[in-house]
């Protein structure tokens, strides 16, 4: 069966004439209690706006006749076999149609209770909602629950359709009764319906054509009401929020990629990246095929290069320093929960806020609300399809806004085992209140640093560039808010290793001590950077083994001996050549190059920045994988 809903001739001709026609498609969600006529309504709407492909309705009529069923407009949409068998819509079906005013994507959201997650999917992308109520049955569970969700999802434009008026003899009294009752309910949610329109979807009354049977109705038809909806507010006037999706280093450029979620960004703008608080300036946009834009507004995907190279990673939010998001680990939120398993306190979930992805627990459930009655439920866990107010605590700081300040950065999704099970809006920020007792665990230290510890072990000839690179790596990590400390071989020699010389045994002992010191810093939650020639593979293997409970990254800083000797920053090679230093690595003592280091840097071939990026990339990968193991 092949169906595509295309524009209709009349509308297209009108569109050609009216160049001012609104090109933006408006997304409208259709919700309401099961069997209150949503699919029938949408089928009828498509038919009456002449938006069905040729022969479609005849084909469905024929199929119905073949199966001995009465034709229904709902069948136009219920294209999948299973749906026809169950007679309910399974999933958010998007259908495109067009009035003389503009194009629409209509979302036929299901009303059956267990399919709430699909309604959420549909409604979250809609700018306006049509909610159907059966005139005969009146306001039901789902009528209320759906309105609650609409309010939570931020759908503000709502028209209520009082359907099946033909079954109540087109009675104005029945209509008024439903309107009064439901308007009061909406008011308690802070919602207002623009209109309550009496319709009979099955017969096309008050959809496109005005109904002769309800002369008392002087308000708009459904299409008139649709055309009066406005697109969601343009957020370009808000403060800039640019969450980083990725850093691209496909060529010589280092590009920060992300979508502008609010505000606008221009070359020359000073940016601050949160969490972390590091600043830089937009140097260029790198649009392909060019020329690059002068400004990227809300909704635009940007490719930014920065003037000062700072450590930036996916998840951070770029803002203008004058108006930054909040940064914290604890906030109060209202959550809707769709998971099969209930939402429980002190269990670790993944919290996704824009491109941030952190572990989080529900520290406290303050209130659980039954979405259809709005009554409070007393329970220790939040059952499926209900709504609650909770305190959320994250393991790492996150950047966010309060929902009423900036909705798009004030909401998040909760994920478990790779699947999204709920969403929430941030009501207010809280100061952290740690109430833990006894021994401080490594996980707690990680939670406080915001990252797992690690050891970066730089090995290579004297003059290969170990310290230069390690210092820059330390700087970038420190500026990005990481706990980091550098354990330098030369520094150790002046204090801890004062008693050691350069014999094989002394070198082995020196490596052992350096690894012990690095281990202490890692135990304290730091990323420790060790710079040591450590010429013998066996010594390095022992260090790796001793530090096996931490992420260990061996960085081979590799430059040919002649290059190192030419650099000879400390004049040591010259001395060694003159025989003034015995057992000098590379000259009078061997250097065993690592066979499979985690990072291999040819400092004679790469720029220092490229070398630093390589190390940070490797570290980033390791820390990300370690982040999976945290517990609170």
């Amino acid at each position, binding site marked *: 069966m092949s169906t595509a809903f295309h524009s*209709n001739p009349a509308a297209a001709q009108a569109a050609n004439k009216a160049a001012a026609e609104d090109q933006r498609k408006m997304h409208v969600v259709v919700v309401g209690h099961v069997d209150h006529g949503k699919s029938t309504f949408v089928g009828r709407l498509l038919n009456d706006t002449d938006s069905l492909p040729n022969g479609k309705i005849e084909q469905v009529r024929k199929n119905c006749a073949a199966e001995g069923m009465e034709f229904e407009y709902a069948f136009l949409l219920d294209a999948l076999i299973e749906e026809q068998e169950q007679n309910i819509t399974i*999933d958010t079906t998007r259908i495109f149609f067009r009035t003389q005013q503009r194009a629409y994507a209509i979302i036929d959201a299901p009303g059956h209770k267990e399919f709430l997650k699909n309604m*959420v999917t549909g409604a979250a992308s809609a700018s306006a909602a049509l909610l159907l109520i059966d005139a005969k049955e009146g306001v039901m569970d789902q009528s209320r629950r759906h309105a609650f969700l609409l309010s939570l999802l931020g759908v503000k434009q709502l028209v209520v359709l009082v359907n099946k008026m033909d079954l109540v003899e087109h009675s104005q009294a029945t209509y008024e009764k439903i309107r009064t009752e439901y308007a009061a309910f909406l008011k308690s949610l802070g919602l207002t319906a623009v209109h309550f329109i009496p319709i009979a979807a099955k017969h096309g009354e008050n959809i496109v054509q005005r109904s002769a049977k309800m002369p008392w109705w002087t308000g708009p038809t459904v299409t008139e009401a649709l055309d009066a909806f406005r697109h969601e507010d343009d957020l370009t006037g808000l403060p800039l929020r640019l969450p980083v999706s990725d850093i691209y280093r496909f060529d010589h450029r280092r590009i920060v990629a992300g979508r502008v979620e609010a505000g606008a960004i221009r070359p020359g703008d000073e940016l601050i990246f949160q969490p972390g608080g590091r600043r830089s300036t937009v140097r260029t946009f790198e649009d392909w095929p060019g020329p690059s834009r002068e400004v990227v507004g809300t909704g635009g995907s940007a490719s930014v290069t920065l003037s000062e190279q700072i450590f930036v990673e996916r998840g951070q939010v770029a803002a203008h320093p004058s108006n930054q998001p909040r940064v914290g680990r604890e906030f109060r939120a209202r959550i809707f929960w769709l998971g099969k398993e209930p939402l429980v306190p002190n269990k670790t979930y993944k919290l996704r806020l824009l491109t941030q992805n952190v572990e989080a627990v529900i520290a406290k459930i303050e209130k659980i609300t039954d979405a259809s009655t709005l009554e409070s439920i007393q329970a220790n866990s939040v059952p499926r399809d209900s709504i609650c107010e909770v305190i959320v605590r994250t393991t790492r700081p996150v950047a966010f806004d309060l929902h009423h300040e900036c909705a798009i950065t004030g909401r998040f999704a909760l994920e478990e085992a790779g699947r999204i099970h709920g969403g929430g809006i941030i009501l207010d920020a809280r100061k952290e209140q740690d109430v833990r007792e006894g021994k401080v665990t490594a996980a707690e230290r990680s939670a406080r640093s915001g990252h797992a510890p690690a050891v970066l072990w730089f090995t290579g000839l004297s003059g290969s560039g170990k310290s230069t690179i390690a210092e820059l790596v330390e700087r970038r990590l420190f500026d990005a808010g990481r706990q980091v400390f550098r354990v330098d071989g030369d520094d150790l020699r002046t204090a801890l290793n004062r008693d050691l010389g350069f014999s094989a045994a002394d070198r082995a002992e020196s490596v052992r001590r350096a690894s012990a010191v690095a281990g202490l810093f890692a135990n304290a939650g730091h990323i420790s950077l060790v710079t040591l020639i450590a010429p013998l593979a066996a010594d390095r293997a022992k260090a790796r083994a001793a530090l096996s409970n931490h992420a260990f990254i061996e960085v081979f800083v590799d430059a040919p001996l002649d290059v190192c000797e030419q650099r000879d920053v400390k004049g040591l090679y010259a001395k060694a050549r003159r025989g003034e230093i015995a057992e000098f690595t590379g000259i009078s003592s061997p250097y065993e190059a690592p066979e499979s280091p985690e990072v291999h840097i040819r400092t004679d071939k790469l720029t220092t920045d490229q070398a630093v990026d390589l190390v940070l990339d490797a570290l980033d990968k390791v820390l990300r994988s370690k982040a999976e193991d945290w517990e609170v």
Partner: protein
Amino acid sequence: MSRNAQNDHLTRLEQTSIHVFREAFANFRSVCMPWSMGKDSNVLIWLARKAFCGKIPFPLLHIDTTYEFPEMYEFREKAKVIHGIDLIVRVNEDAIRRGIGYATHDPVTVTHELKTVPFKAAIDEFKWDALVTGIRRDEDPTRAKERWFSPRSAEGNWDYKDQPPEFWGQFASSAPEGGHVRVQPLLEWTELDIWEYIRRENIPNPTLYFARNGKRFRSLGCHPITHPVDSPASNIDEVIEELKLTKISERAGRAQDHVGRNSMQELRAKGFM
């Protein structure tokens, strides 16, 4: 406002698709983009180049049924160079040896053997966990139910009755064990949007889409089962004008869709795009 800052309908679609590409690349270990060389596929290439600042950082895959129009093979080689594509080509040689073909078999069988089977084999071979497809919601009712990120099981099956919720720009971030996620940046586009974008951006496409002797192709597949439609539209402007007026569905010329009442759904549940 400068032209650069314009926020028209096509730009919105484009920018959203770029975001979907970037989220996929950031979230998945190994991404691949099947390429049919058709118009939607070519728009995808263009969008990917925009998303990644000129160069697509993952391979493309062409499942060659050996029944492509000759012009398509020429186009493939040309486009490879223009876009700097890293292309993997796969043919189900075994099925061809067994004599599977349109002369002797029905279109559903041939499509399964020559497209779906080698497609699954390539996924097994390369272990991709994300595949970028050109699915649009307006193409077919079964496609209307798709998500931006749509998980597929190890067998390639699509559990359309239990799809993850998708809201506020948060997509399914991981593939099921042994399976993959279909990433669908064109979900919100219509056929008309595609052509208007091709015109605006001047994206290379096969000329089979334009009328010769009063007939043109609206959708391209294997030549024995893909039929041209009557049309005088011989250039892109005429195609766009025609689409604004038509009520004939896009895939009307694709025979495998019309064999049984639910053949499209059966094909898709088995892993067809």
